[in-house]
């Protein structure tokens, strides 16, 4: 006879789970009681949001399913932001929540929340377990949906009496999804190879083709295939924030990040193009600017696994539904049978020096110099995790990684407080890798309690706070669009982060902008940064940033990509 909790853990092991992140509480205690000897290692965070972001970090850097667990009521509701984040960024995540006893469900019992209902619109799939017999099937099906197609979050809610009850258990089960008529047709989208000849014909007619790479390219595992195709196409190419790292930054046709804080070259090329290839991106408003004026001259060819992402901005000329690992090689095979028009003139304009990636005045900003200095000293294959705000965009603009999973951030939901706990998950997944967590002073305080997790585990995470004593991105918008009315964004009474870190027994120090005014930086500063990055212990570096430093280029909300601001303009 096995307890429900033992069955849950055995099923998790069968799915390949070695690590779960969580926080115990009443309804999930039986599962915690069964952890020892189960083969599943539990990482105690100091808040359930920390647990779910850590699970996300683990999933994002490995491509495996991240697992978070929490108790009923507040434990479960504290997972919600992470679940929404996983939905937006296509992160495979399974959350296991304890629920009150079956007999108490619906009675507003202590710590009872309808987590199934609360998360219904945020999950790919969810299940409130009603009988002990359902557990193996629920876990197998949950993992299937979390990792299949466009990955996403799953919630499995288990009443505490199910975790305690005993039954005969013959072992984990496999889940086989039901076939449905449209699946065959969707899968058949790429086997109908006429799409390849149609695209080749569009290329023959095009004069300014470009390629946009999104997260789907990484999720499909088709990076080598994509890079080969892009080399063949040799057209100006750019990436969304989640596509960074998919294209080697040194590729001569690569223009960097596109969108609200994308490079001038990328945004300009996207506005001018007459043929846009999209590889695994949903084209959200941060990428398109005003959707009604997005790529106004372009025909769109969209490679995408999730039909729900097609035609969101406007209809595509050709949509190729399927795994990029299958569709890209099919297209490339066809492409190699054609001689492409000469796009060198267009490439020279789009990639030329006149469209330099950043306004030269921006490069003089001490914070950008600091990030350049930091990133240039990172060991190969480091992972940078950025929180949300100005520092996130600076990091996205300046970090040039060739590693598809080398830059991690909450891009779709934009959840402040993401980076520190996510770095915990990343470091646990990659114990020998340099993991650099870049936060702002606002976001760092949203999950600052995870310093205790870092310390307890002795994780050598390198934490940087870009401290401008403001909620910087909001302040920037207030400056530019709200007549400098800095309503409730002043954080000048921030605590001393260096002292806080010391209280957690984490070595910490401060650098200010003066250290970046010399170029190159002094040996002393360089050595200090090197020591920081190579320390075998957790470290915190607080960089004092000018309070009113801004991120440029910037496409104002509602403007077209061609209307990006390259520097501050008078307040309207």
């Amino acid at each position, binding site marked *: 006879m096995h307890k429900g909790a033992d069955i849950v853990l055995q099923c998790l092991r069968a799915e390949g789970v070695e690590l779960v992140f969580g926080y115990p509480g009443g309804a999930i205690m039986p599962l915690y009681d069964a952890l020892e000897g189960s083969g599943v290692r539990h990482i105690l965070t100091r808040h359930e949001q920390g647990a779910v972001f850590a699970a996300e970090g683990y999933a994002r850097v490995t491509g495996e399913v991240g697992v978070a667990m929490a108790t009923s009521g507040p434990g479960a509701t504290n997972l919600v932001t992470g679940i929404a984040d996983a939905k937006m960024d296509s992160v495979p995540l399974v959350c296991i929540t304890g629920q009150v006893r079956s007999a108490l469900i619906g009675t507003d019992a202590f710590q009872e929340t309808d987590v199934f209902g609360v998360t219904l619109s945020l999950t790919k799939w969810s299940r409130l377990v009603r009988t002990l017999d359902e557990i193996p099937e629920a876990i197998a099906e949950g993992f299937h949906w979390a990792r299949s197609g466009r990955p996403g979050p799953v919630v499995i809610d288990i009443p505490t009496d199910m975790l305690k009850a005993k039954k005969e258990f013959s072992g984990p089960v496999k889940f086989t999804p039901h076939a449905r008529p449209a699946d065959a047709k969707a899968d058949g989208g790429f086997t109908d190879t006429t799409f390849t000849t149609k695209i080749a014909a569009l290329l023959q007619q095009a004069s300014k083709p470009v390629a946009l790479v999104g997260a789907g390219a990484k999720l499909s595992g088709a990076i080598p295939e994509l890079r080969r195709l892009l080399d063949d196409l040799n057209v100006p190419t750019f990436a969304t924030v989640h596509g960074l790292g998919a294209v080697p930054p040194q590729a001569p046709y690569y223009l960097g990040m596109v969108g609200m804080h994308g490079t001038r070259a990328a945004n300009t090329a996207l506005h001018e193009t007459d043929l846009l290839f999209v590889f695994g991106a949903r084209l959200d408003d941060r990428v398109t600017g005003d959707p009604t*004026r997005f*790529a106004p*001259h372009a025909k769109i060819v969209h490679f995408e696994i999730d039909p729900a992402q097609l*035609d969101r901005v406007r*209809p595509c*000329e050709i949509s190729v*539904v399927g795994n990029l690992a299958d569709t890209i090689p099919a297209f490339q095979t066809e492409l190699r049978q054609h001689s492409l028009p000469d796009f060198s003139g267009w490439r020279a304009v789009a990639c030329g020096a006149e469209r330099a990636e950043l306004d030269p005045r921006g490069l003089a900003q001490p914070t950008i110099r600091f990030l350049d200095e930091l990133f240039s000293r990172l060991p190969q294959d480091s992972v940078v995790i950025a929180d949300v705000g100005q520092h996130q965009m600076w990091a996205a603009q300046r970090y040039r990684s060739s590693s598809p999973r080398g830059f991690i951030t909450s891009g779709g939901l934009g959840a402040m407080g993401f980076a520190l706990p996510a770095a915990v998950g990343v470091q646990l997944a990659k114990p020998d890798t340099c993991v650099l967590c870049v936060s702002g002073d606002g976001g760092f305080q949203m999950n600052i309690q995870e310093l205790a997790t870092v310390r307890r585990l002795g994780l050598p995470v390198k934490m940087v706070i870009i401290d401008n004593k403001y909620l910087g991105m909001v302040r920037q918008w207030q400056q530019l669009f709200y007549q400098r009315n800095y309503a409730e964004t002043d954080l000048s009474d921030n605590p001393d982060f260096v002292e806080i870190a010391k209280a957690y027994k984490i070595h910490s120090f401060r650098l200010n902008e003066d250290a970046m005014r010399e170029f190159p930086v002094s040996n002393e500063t360089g050595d200090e940064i090197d020591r920081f990055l190579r320390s075998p212990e957790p470290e915190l570096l607080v960089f004092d940033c000018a309070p009113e430093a801004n991120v440029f280029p910037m496409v104002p909300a509602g403007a077209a990509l061609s209307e990006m601001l390259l520097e501050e303009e008078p307040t309207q």
Partner: protein
Amino acid sequence: MQSFYIRYRNTQGTLMRILNAASRRALDLPVVQAEPAEHDHQVTLALDVNQKQVGQLYREWYAIADVIQVSSDQVSSGAAHTAEWTAAHPPAGVTMEESRAAARA
């Protein structure tokens, strides 16, 4: 007003996910009729939607794990007819030319 017929396996939450695709767009749900249909279930919805929303709803419903098939009574072209999503590419709200022309305007 347009009628939609969504065939689904009656698993936990599937009907709610179907309805949520409409409610998250602040669409009223004046008619909802769910019933068994052969081995599965079918829900009939009447919604006041524009053509762009039709495409979005088709795609979102189809992304739900246990939705089997989506069809609707199309009235936009003048004559009502039943349109079933039979291709990988779901129906679009506006034509490509209309969309590009609007972007250039």
